C-alpha cells in the first residue's frame, strides 16, 4: 500500500527487537472478542490511484458545476474568480501540511500569515482586533452572541434587526438554546445584542447608524454580520459596531458545496479577552528580532478547559491563508475595483429584470445581490430556468434572490432575461 512506510521485513525486525511475536499482542488490553484479526467484511480492499480517480470522477460527473452555465445563486456563498496564484501557494507543503503553530520558532510562515489576515480583517471591518478565523459565518455569529452574553451578564436574549440569513439564524438558535437563551421577538432591554446583517439576506443595505442608536438606548451590543466580504470594498466599514462577524470565503476559498468556507470574527479591543478562537500576536525572540506567537491562550480550551470562551480548536487556517493571498493580490485598489464591478453587474441585471413583465424589484438598494417578487412560486420558476440550463437565484416563496459577480457576463444576463420572459409571459 503506497502510503504505508514500513515493509514486512521492517515490521518483523521491529517486532523481534521489542520481543513480541505478533502485533496483536500490543492490543492485549482489548477484550479479545472485540479485536478484529481480519479486515472488516463488506468493505472494499485497497485501490490504486487510477481506480480511485475513476470512482471519484464518476461521482463528480453527476454534479453540475456552477461555472458550466449562467449562475445566479448567492445567499451566503458567492462565486468569484480566484487568481491562479492562490491555489498554487496554498498547496505548498509548508502551508498545507503543517500543524497549528504551537512551536513558533518553526512556524513563523503560518503565524505571519495569520497576523496579516487579522490585519486585513480589521481594516475591512473597521474593528480593532480579529481572531485567526472561525469555521464559517454562521458559527461566527453564534460565537458572537455567546460573547455578547458573557459581556452583558444576566441578559439572555438576542434581537435580530431584520432579515438574517436563515442558516445563520438556525445555527445561532442552536447555540442560544444550549445557553438557555433565545431570540427576542423585538429588541428590548433584556437583549445582550442586536444582530444586523449588512447587506441583509435579501441584499438590502440597512442603515447601521439607526441600529447603533437603538443599541445605545437599550444598553446592548451591536453585532454586524457580513456574509459577502467583497461588499466591504464599496460599502462603509461597520465601525460603529461592537462585534463584526461573517463569511470571507468569497476571497480565495470558493464554493466547495458550502464547506470549507471561512468565518471571521472581529471586535473592539476592549473585548479581546472574551474572544473565541486563536489569536496571533507580535513579540520578539531571544535576539530581539520581531516574530509572532499564538497569544492570549488563557481564553482557550487547552488551558481553561470548562471555563474557556469557546470549545473551538481547529479553525479554517488554510482558508484564511487563501483569503490573505487573494486579498493581498487585490490590495487597496483591486478590492475597491472588484467591489465596484460587482455592484455594476448587479445594477445592470437590475435594469434588465425591470423590463421583464411579471417581475417586481423589491430592493431600494443593494450590493451584488437583490430580490425580485414574482407572480408565482419561485421554485417553479427556478425549475423552468433549469430546463434552459440556467441556475437561477435562490427561491423563497414568490421571491427570488439573484446574485452576480465579476464572473457574470452580459450574455448570462441576457439568457436569464430571455428565459424569464418565456416562463413568466
Amino acid at each position, binding site marked *: 500500500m503506497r*502510503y504505508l512506510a514500513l515493509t514486512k521485513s521492517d515490521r518483523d525486525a521491529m517486532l523481534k527487537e521489542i520481543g513480541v511475536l505478533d502485533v496483536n499482542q500490543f492490543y492485549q488490553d482489548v477484550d479479545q472478542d472485540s479485536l478484529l484479526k481480519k*479486515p472488516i467484511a463488506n468493505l472494499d480492499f485497497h485501490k490504486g490511484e487510477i481506480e480511485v480517480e475513476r470512482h471519484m470522477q464518476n461521482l463528480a460527473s*453527476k454534479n453540475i458545476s456552477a461555472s458550466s452555465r449562467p449562475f445566479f445563486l448567492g445567499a451566503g456563498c458567492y462565486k468569484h474568480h480566484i487568481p491562479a496564484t492562490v491555489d*498554487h501557494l496554498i498547496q505548498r507543503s509548508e502551508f498545507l501540511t503543517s500543524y497549528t503553530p504551537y512551536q513558533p520558532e518553526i512556524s513563523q510562515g503560518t503565524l505571519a500569515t495569520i497576523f496579516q489576515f487579522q490585519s486585513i480583517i480589521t481594516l475591512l471591518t473597521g474593528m480593532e482586533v480579529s481572531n485567526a478565523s472561525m469555521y464559517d459565518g454562521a458559527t461566527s455569529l453564534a460565537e458572537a452572541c455567546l460573547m455578547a452574553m458573557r459581556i452583558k451578564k444576566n441578559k439572555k436574549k438576542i434581537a435580530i434587526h431584520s432579515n438574517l440569513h436563515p442558516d445563520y439564524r438556525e445555527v445561532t438558535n442552536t447555540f442560544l438554546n444550549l445557553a438557555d437563551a433565545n431570540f427576542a421577538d423585538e429588541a428590548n432591554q433584556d437583549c445582550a445584542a442586536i444582530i444586523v446583517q449588512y447587506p441583509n439576506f435579501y441584499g438590502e443595505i440597512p442603515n447601521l447608524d439607526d441600529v447603533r442608536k437603538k443599541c445605545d438606548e437599550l444598553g446592548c451590543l451591536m453585532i454586524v454580520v457580513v456574509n459577502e466580504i467583497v461588499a466591504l470594498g464599496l460599502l462603509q466599514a461597520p465601525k460603529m459596531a461592537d462585534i463584526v462577524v461573517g463569511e470571507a470565503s468569497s476571497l480565495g476559498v470558493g464554493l466547495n*458545496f458550502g464547506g470549507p468556507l471561512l468565518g471571521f470574527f472581529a471586535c473592539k479591543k476592549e473585548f479581546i479577552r472574551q474572544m473565541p478562537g486563536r489569536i496571533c500576536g507580535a513579540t520578539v525572540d531571544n535576539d530581539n528580532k520581531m516574530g509572532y506567537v499564538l497569544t492570549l491562550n488563557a481564553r482557550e480550551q487547552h488551558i481553561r478547559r470548562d471555563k474557556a470562551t469557546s470549545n473551538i480548536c481547529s479553525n479554517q487556517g488554510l482558508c484564511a491563508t487563501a483569503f490573505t493571498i487573494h486579498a493581498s493580490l487585490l490590495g*487597496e485598489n483591486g478590492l475597491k475595483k472588484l467591489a465596484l464591478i460587482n455592484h455594476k453587474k448587479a445594477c445592470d441585471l437590475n435594469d434588465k429584470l425591470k423590463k421583464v413583465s411579471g417581475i417586481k424589484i423589491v430592493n431600494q438598494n443593494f450590493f451584488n445581490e437583490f430580490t425580485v417578487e414574482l407572480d408565482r412560486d419561485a421554485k417553479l420558476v*427556478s425549475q423552468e430556468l433549469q430546463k434552459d440550463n440556467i441556475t437561477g437565484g435562490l427561491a423563497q416563496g414568490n421571491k427570488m434572490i439573484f446574485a452576480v459577480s465579476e464572473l457574470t457576463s452580459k450574455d448570462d444576463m441576457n439568457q436569464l432575461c430571455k428565459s424569464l420572459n418565456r416562463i413568466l409571459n
Partner: protein
Amino acid sequence: MKSQLKEEFENNMDFTPKQIGLNQETDLLIKQSHKGACGVDLPEVESFQLKIGQNPRSEIGLAEVNEPQVIRHFVRLSNQNYSIDAGFYPLGSCTMKHNPRLNEKMARIAGFADIHPLQDQSTTQGALELMYQLQIWLGTLTGLTSVSLSPAAGAQGELAGMMVIKKAHEVKGEADSRKIVLIPDSAHGTNPATAAICGFEIKVIPTNQEGLIDFDAFKNLITEYGTKIAGTMITNPNTCGRFEKDIKKIADLIHQVGAYFYCDGANYNAIVGKVRPADLGVDVMHFNLHKTFSTPHGGGGPGSGPIAVRPELEEFLPSPHVRKNGDIYEFYTPKNSCGKVKGFNGQFGMHVRALSYILSHGADGLQQVAQDAVLSANYILYKLKDYYHVPFKGFCMHECLLNDKNQKEKGVTTLDIAKSLIEYGIHPMTVFFPLVVQNAMLIEPTETETKKDIDKFINIMIYIAKEIKSGNGDRFHNFPLSTPRKRLDEVKAAKNPVITWSELNN
C-alpha cells in the same frame, strides 16, 4: 514593548550584505506597499449611478503590491515553516500522517469544488452520493451505523455528539434531571469546554497508576450521581497512550444508570479497522478526518468532525443528514434533530479527501494503518525507555508517553528537549499534555514514517538524553539556534497584545 516593535518595524532597508544563504526574510506586505501596484488586472468601470444608499467608502488601508511580490512574500514565509512533507512530526494526539496529493486533486475537480450548497439537489446527486458513501464507511468501520458529516471539526463533533445525548434525554423528559457528565482528567481541553457549552456540569474521573481511568473512582461517581448523569466523555485509546481495559465495564455501568457513552475519536488511528467502538459499548463518537483520514492540517485547519451514533439515536442527529430514497440521495432533517451546528452541509471538501483516502487504503489497508502506527509507537517506547522516564508501564497504543523526570535533576526540562529536537531538524512531540503527567512528552509517529526515520529520531532523543546525563545539557536552554527565530517571548505578547500591523504603526 510597542516602541521596540515599532523600531523593528520601521527599521529601514539595510543595504549592508548579510550572510543569509537561503534564509531569506520578508517584510510584511504593508511595508512593501508601493502606490499604484496591484496583483490583479480588472476591467475599467465606466462611471454609473450607485445604488448602495450611501457614499462609497474611501481609504481601506490595504497594501498595494503586484503578483511577483505576493508570490515571493508567501514563498519566503513558507520557508519558515516546518511541515510533515519536510520531516518527522511526532505530535501526540494530532496524528500528523502523510497527506496524499491524490486527495487534493480529487477535491479540486470542478464537479466537487465548484458546486453551490443551495443548488437544486438534482444537480448535486454525485456530491450527496459521495457523502452517503462516506457515511457508510464510517458507520461500518465503527459499528455505529448512523453518521452525520455536518460538524466542522473535532470540537464541533464533540458538541454535536453531546447535543445528541442531551436531546435523547430531553425526549425522555430527563434533560433537566441529568446535568452531569463524567470526564477523565487526562481528556483534551475540548471535552470539558464542550460539555460546559452544552450546559452540563463536569465531574472529573481520576487517572490511576497505570494511566487508565480509575475504575473504582468511576464506580463511586456512578453510585453517587446515578440518574443525574447524562453521559461520559472518554477518549479511547486515551491521551496517556493506553487502551482503557475496563472500557466494557465502564460502558455497562454508564448504561445501567440510563446515561450514554460518548467516545472522543481523536485517537482512532490506533484502532481503525481493529476494533469497532460499537463493540465496546460506545453510543456516540466523533472522527477527526484531519487526523485518522489524512486531510491536511493546513496550519490549523480546516478540520472535519463527523459523528457516528447507534441507530436508535439517529433521529437526534444534526441537520442536514444524507439518506437514500430509492435511487435518489437527499438531505433531510432527522425527526428530533438536535439542531443545525454549521451553515450549509459541513466541510464537504474534507469529505472528498477523506473518501479518496479511505478508498485508497480499503478495509485491509486501514487495519494495517492501525497496526503499523501502534508498532512504531511501541518500537520508540522500547528504544527510549532506558533513557526517559516512562510514567505508565506496559505496551502503548499509537503514541507513547514519556516525561523529563530523569533529565530535570540535571536542570533540563521537557521544554528544552522539545526545542532541541527543533535544532536537530525534527518537530517536537506534544509537550505538557496530558496534564496528568508532569512535563509530559507525548510521541505519535503514525504509520507513514520509515523505520530509518524513526531510528533517526530515536538516536537524536538518546543523544539528547546522554548529553544531559553527562552534564552537557545546559546549552539546550537556548535551543533552537538555527531556526528563522529563536525562542520567542510569549509573556510579552500576552501582556500588551499587538495583533495587527496597524498597531505596529501607532
